């Protein structure tokens, strides 16, 4: 226990280091916020224009009724699985190395879910009637149709958003108490409300630990169900290429894949900007890299199993889509995707010294996310563009309006994250302390 007790002396330094990102903001920060806000404003303007004039501002047309908005929705829900996976699954497996990463990932989760919900609103034809989706008794005596996979989606995403917010907030309570005592200004009032008057008695700690321990397996189960249900949006339909029984596991693994990639990007930038090298160390990138190898291989396995059955079955409706993707109109994005999400990770992450190189891992993370976005578009567009009645074959690429709106929402995600770093300690302070204190015992 001697080493443990010596570690208690580090606490003031830990407090100072991990509260430092909350204090002060340089010119670069303000410029970044202004730039992002401008992009968000452009996206908002484009969206309001679309609401005024109609969904015709997009490039969608029969038979391609779903396009970039739904691809973005699926993508952002996928990214949101990062937080739950790292906080939840790694907590269940008692992986101590998760401690500096959990908050970065959980913030990513809650912001991604918000953006994903926004993408649904972009996509609705009569968005001002969105409340028809809410089940409430009304004078028309009509409820939403729960037989629709989209209602399963609505229920699941709502559950997931609520659960993720709770899961982000609970471990934040002690950190808010710490911040309240050391940070002034308007934030002090917010922290004092949000910290619930936390004092740090053993009964409070026990309650917190109990709640986290109960919620963790529940939220992991919710996480698995959410992206399965998003996958069933496609799986429940008759469209060849969508109606596949493997789609639910494929989506879940793909979500964790893109989520982990996004967390690596976040880790790199947070570490670099706030000089958190002592806390986010190459070993963390190393372990994330190993997780990514697992997801890459699993995803490749599931994808191969799916496409093998399509290729061997040789059913014309399905083969038309496979041809379009592998050697036809959609071949360039398809092969780009293969390279970005399978080949590059497999060739780089298997090298141990590469895994300990933060910059390289960040680049691979960006590549994975780009590739996964392309993958979402390839799930949606080629099957829709090759309907069974061949008279109706068509093609699609997003319009400028769509791209502006989607870039605006990406900017919003980054902006919210950048602003959150100034409000929430980006590394979970008490968990980091806890990890170091028990470093002698657990490691």
């Amino acid at each position, binding site marked *: 226990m001697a080493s443990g007790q010596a570690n208690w002396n580090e606490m003031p330094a830990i407090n100072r280091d991990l509260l430092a990102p909350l204090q002060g903001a340089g010119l670069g920060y303000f410029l970044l916020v202004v730039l992002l806000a401008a992009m968000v404003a452009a996206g908002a303007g484009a969206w309001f224009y679309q609401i005024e004039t109609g969904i015709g501002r997009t490039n969608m047309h029969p038979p391609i009724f779903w396009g970039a908005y739904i691809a973005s929705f699926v993508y952002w829900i996928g990214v949101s699985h990062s937080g739950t996976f790292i906080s939840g699954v790694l907590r269940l497996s008692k992986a101590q190395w998760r401690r500096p990463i959990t908050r970065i990932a959980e913030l990513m989760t809650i912001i991604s879910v918000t953006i994903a919900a926004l993408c649904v609103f972009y996509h609705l034809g009569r*968005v001002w009637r969105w409340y028809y989706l809410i089940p409430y008794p009304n004078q028309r005596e009509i409820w939403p149709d729960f037989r629709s996979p989209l209602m399963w989606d609505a229920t699941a995403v709502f559950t997931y958003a609520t659960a993720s917010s709770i899961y982000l907030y609970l471990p934040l309570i002690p950190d808010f108490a710490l911040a309240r005592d050391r940070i002034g200004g308007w934030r002090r009032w917010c922290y004092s409300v949000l910290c619930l008057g936390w004092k740090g008695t053993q009964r409070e700690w026990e309650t917190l630990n109990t709640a986290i321990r*109960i919620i963790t397996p529940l*939220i992991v189960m919710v996480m698995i169900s959410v992206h399965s249900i998003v996958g069933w949006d496609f799986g429940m339909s008759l469209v060849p290429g969508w109606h596949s029984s493997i789609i639910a596991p494929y989506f879940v693994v793909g979500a964790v894949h893109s989520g982990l990639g996004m967390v690596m990007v976040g880790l790199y930038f947070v570490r670099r900007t706030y000089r958190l090298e002592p806390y986010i160390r190459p070993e963390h990138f190393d372990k994330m890299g190993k997780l990514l190898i697992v997801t890459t291989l699993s995803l490749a396995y599931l994808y191969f199993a799916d496409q093998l059955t399509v290729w061997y079955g040789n059913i014309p409706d399905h083969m038309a889509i496979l041809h379009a993707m592998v050697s036809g109109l959609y071949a360039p994005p398809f092969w780009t995707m293969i390279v970005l999400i399978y080949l590059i990770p497999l060739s780089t992450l298997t090298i141990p010294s590469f895994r300990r190189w933060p910059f390289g891992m960040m680049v691979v993370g960006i590549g994975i996310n780009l590739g996964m976005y392309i993958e979402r578009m390839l799930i949606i567009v080629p099957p829709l563009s090759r309907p069974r009645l061949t008279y109706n074959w068509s093609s699609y690429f997003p319009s400028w309006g769509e791209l502006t709106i989607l870039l605006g929402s990406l900017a919003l995600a980054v902006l919210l994250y950048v602003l959150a770093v100034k409000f929430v300690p980006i590394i979970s302070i008490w968990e980091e*302390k806890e990890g170091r204190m028990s470093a002698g015992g657990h490691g």
Partner: protein
Amino acid sequence: MAMDEHEALTALFPRQVEIDPLVQSLREAGISEAQISIMTPLPLSERASVRLGSMPLYVITMIAGLVGIAIGIFFAGGTAAMYPLMTGGKPIVGAPIVGIISYETMMLLAIVVTFITSVVTIKRAHRAITERDSRVDDGYVMARVSMSSTSTARIGLIRNLLQRAGSLEIQWESTQKEKGNQSGKAIAVVLAAICLMNGCSRDMQEQPSYEPQEAPRLHSPLGAVPRDSRAVITGSLEESMSEGVNLFRINCSHCHGTTGRGDGPAAAYLKEKPADLHKSDVQTLSDSALYDVLTRGKDVMPPFKGELSAKERRSIVAYVKSLPKRMLEKHANHQ
């Protein structure tokens, strides 16, 4: 408890303090477990089995989960059974569908209720403690022993005990219970602004098609002026002039005369004579004022709105304004 919880001894200990012997010695001195609070920057043990009274927290979670399942069955199965609508040959109440929805609502209720219960428990656990020493986060340990102001000797005894355990600072805390601090303030839920955007819209309630027997909706003629406006939008002078000549002859000359002198055949029968349109008090009127007179009438002159269109009335105005010039031309021609 009859004990006043707001009076307490608080002691600050250095990081290396041994908690268990301290608690043990306090117990031996007659202090009950409930009077002792140890505040630390991180949990001292990994115990995670808090109870509310005698019930473990996970029982509440399970009950909430069962309620959630019931809610899910109501939504997915109950609403469909109450208002059955056939869609695509699927059963009205489908077991897999009810299962999926119930699974999600079960998780939702379980997680939310667990969260709320733990929040309430946390707040109740420290309701007696009013202040938090921020040095705790630096690694110090704060022990708090609540005791009413019993004999000074007893307080002294506990104080000594704490000092022997190695405390750096001992204080006597005696405060009135603070009024509930801000923790209870609910965060207002903001409904999506989107539904305000057009929530009361009358989508498709006004149809552009004509109902049977509905009168045709005529469009206003080009250049029409609003009903109560006196503004005159001048058009091209030439074309209105020729029209004005004819219109004046047809509509105005029987009272105002063919030359506009006010000497038309009907003038003899009128008590108020028609105006001489060459006079300056007519000619100095603005176009709008003349148009107004034509539109609404004046004294015994009838209103020509309805009889003549706006364009026609404007032509007459232009013609009337041109009368002195014509007169001069006529005289010039006659010379």
